[in-house]
């Protein structure tokens, strides 16, 4: 199990390969990569603030729960903070399991919890000003699935 909260970019492909090489006995590896979108064409940067003391412990707790609940072979979370350009990769999750359903479900579970329970806040810096991204009701609702 590996968790990295970092400012610098990561190489999702290299991370996926290292993760896959490190699991033995898994038949299924699922990865998710989140990317900064520029919906309006006016985004200069996405600034991600976090709560350093809490980030590690909150995400570790979520990962521990996923490992146990889906009997995962392994799990990986990388999440960046700081100023990210449109098209930049914000974060990634990877899960490894004996079976595909467990790997998919655990990855979705991790994503749903990272969205609403890990202490990150996004601010969109546009050409016309800056705005905090509001939490979506649907993200909060997604948690009821688990």
């Amino acid at each position, binding site marked *: 199990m590996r968790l990295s909260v970092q400012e610098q970019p990561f190489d999702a492909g290299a991370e996926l390969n290292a993760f896959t090489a490190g699991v033995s006995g898994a038949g299924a590896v699922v990865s998710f990569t989140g990317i900064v979108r520029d919906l309006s064409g006016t985004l200069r940067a996405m600034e991600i603030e976090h*709560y350093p003391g*809490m980030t590690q412990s*909150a995400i570790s707790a979520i990962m521990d729960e996923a490992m146990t609940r889906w009997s995962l072979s392994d799990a990986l979370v990388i999440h960046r903070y700081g100023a990210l350009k449109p098209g930049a990769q914000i*974060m990634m999750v990877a899960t490894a399991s004996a079976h595909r359903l467990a790997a998919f479900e655990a990855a979705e579970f991790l994503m749903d919890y990272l969205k*609403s*329970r890990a*202490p990150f806040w*996004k601010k969109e810096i546009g050409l016309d000003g800056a705005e905090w991204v509001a*939490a979506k009701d649907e993200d909060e609702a997604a948690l009821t699935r688990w």
Partner: protein
Amino acid sequence: MVDVLYFAWVRERIGLPRETLATNAATVTDLIAELSAREERYALAFSDLKSLRVALDQKLSSFDAPLSGVREVAFFPPMTGG
């Protein structure tokens, strides 16, 4: 003494990321009342509790939770990670 941390727009409204306070507040709600009475910028930041979350010693908590023994209180809007 308790460390109080502010994040995202809560930090921006209050105008600082953290401060250390002497308080006798029994609960988070009491602490919010105390801060809001102090200055307008606090009252503004805490005006809508539904849009706020609180963590006590880095664990998500509720506003009616007791502060006894707590060393770090953090206020912030709903998280938007992922």
